[in-house]
């Protein structure tokens, strides 16, 4: 299965090659936490995730073709 993972802002600095978007080929459905680890990113750095526009926690398992957004923590007030 394939998922597309989007990063922006400070999160993008952690993506391979500072890309804005990464397409991942996965042998089987796995949790968002595993997908984030697959990218070499500590899940702790991810503040929130959305999958196809819906907020999801890191244990959520996306389906094939999912559009994932990783939201980095902002810098406060």
């Amino acid at each position, binding site marked *: 299965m394939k998922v597309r993972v*989007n*990063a*922006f*802002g*400070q*999160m*993008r*600095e*952690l993506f391979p090659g500072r890309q*804005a978007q990464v397409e991942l080929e996965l042998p089987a459905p796995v949790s968002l*936490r*595993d997908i*984030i*680890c697959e990218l*070499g*990113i*500590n*899940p*702790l*750095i991810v*503040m*929130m995730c*959305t999958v196809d*526009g819906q*907020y999801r926690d*890191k244990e959520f398992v996306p389906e094939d073709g999912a*559009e994932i*957004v990783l*939201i*980095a*923590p*902002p*810098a*406060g*007030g």
Partner: protein
Amino acid sequence: MANGYAGQILRVNLSTKGVAKQPLSEELIQEFVGGRGFVAKLLWDELPPGTDPLGEDNMVVMAAGPLTGLFVPGSGKTHFGTKSPATGGYGDSNMGGHFAPTMKYAGYDVIIVTGKAAGPSILVVDDSRVEVRDGAEYWGMGAIDCEKALKDDLGEEFQIITVGPAAEKLVKYACISHDFGRQAGRTGVGTVFGSKNLKAVAVRGTGTIPVVDPAGALEKGKAMYQSCYNKPGFQGWTPFGTAGITDWVNEVGAFPTRNFQTSYFKKYKEINGAALREKILVTDKGCFGCPIPCGKYSRARTKLGQVTVEGPEYETIALLGGNCSLDKIEEVAYANYICDQLGIDTISGGAVVSFAVECFEKGLLSETQIGRKIAFGDLESIVYLLEKIATREGIGDLLAEGVRTAAARIGGGSDKFAIHIKGLEWSGYECRNAPGMMLSYMTADVGAHHNRAWALGFDISGGSGSVTDLIQGKGERPASLSVFDPAAYAAKVDKVIELQHMRPMFDLLGVCRLQWVEIGMEVSHYEEIMPLISGKQMSLADLLVVSERVWNLTRAFSAREIPGFGRSFDYPPGRFLEERIPDGPSAGRVMSKEEADWLLDEYYRKRGWDENGLPTAATLEGLGLGFAAETAASRAK
């Protein structure tokens, strides 16, 4: 007149009620761009060395940038600067809202206020008409109430900044308030207003800002907004605003709790962004030109009454919530409102109150001295102390000086848990397990403020060399992050310096950084729109050089103004160097003095500063700051 600028500096001497207007110099624009750059240079040039921060000679500089007031995302920022009453060194603070755009429409990029009015006054700027008026009827009003009264008296189209009773009583961390809930909160910029008997500034502007290619700038501006709307994070940001970070900061063990005794607040879900949205939100609110409104209007009912307030923002949640251990979002909002009306910075206010409660718990302040028992988590205690501070009654007179001075007078080892850098109270991130963020705070030019460089994310991501551990840990923080590693720490120093140059760029241009920080709008847009506005090429690299220039100049300013200034001003408080975090995700972590020294040595070396943390003459000259080199050299002796 330079395109992108209103073209004038407005000077007001409150002692004489004298008003002068002068053209904005091309040299100032070229070397310092705008906003924070103008503030730093004008303070260096015009403030007599050794000026008393509360004396007539101190200045308040209010500055816009070349993008302020134009069709550019987040172009509503106003930058304030002064010699800080909180630190005695360089002080600045900025806010959103609508003030600086209106300043420019009235014809001014900069307003400089000096002197001291004979009695309570307000400054009214109505396009070219400028007048210092009697302000007695507004003196004593809450900052929010005063803005409402002035809107009623002058007209809704005036944009107004006010100070509250805390500024009138010279509380060292009084803020400037605007737009019913936006604040320039830090370093005591409001205190200087109070010292000058200046209660408010009202501005109405009906003019325009010259732009070299209006059609091109409009199209580019549209593209910038569209870029924001198209970002995947666009819809994720607004619902919670900055309060949305509360969960994460607790998960990583960096949330100020009980006067920074620990870094994890067990009831954080009662005061987070979701609690705000579910329990007290009325509506979202944005500043001038904002595509991603993070402001929140809230209505909260507590045992002490019902309030309507803008907020709470994350920093307020951290310092009045976790740090004072208020565990209901309604109570945090209530304390927020009290601070806003009194005109107290919620960051310093929360830090001072929590310091006082810990002093009471440790027997260093008595019930008699305070006037009642006080406790963490007790809203009545928090509000009682805030009101005492604002009136300087009883214990409030001591606490109004800030934690550094209060600890020096209280003694008993309280300096170890007076959490500040350079006299400015620490904002919302506990850093014993985040060396990069710790260094950000240690070296921040204004004192312990997160907005100079926010390196916490880099700390948590591992910085460098720890990715394998991180993956194997599946999100659990590996032990290696808590162990000194020269390669990883060197990368953190690099990151801090990079961020300390990146962030001023937004302050120079007069725009909000959140479009970049939060949803990832590309910074390349700025170098593309600047030629359309100003007619001049200004690359990102050019802007970063100006940022570095400003960073060195403000350091030199503090060296000029603070006797003995240098390395000793850059260390975190004893608590962070001696006490291990007792619980939560960062349990057991402490930063050693050796780590702090290593970070400072590396940082100074990479900055071209001497071992005492002072910019060398060569560094200053290389940045076009030769005029400051002689002062720096004399301080280094």
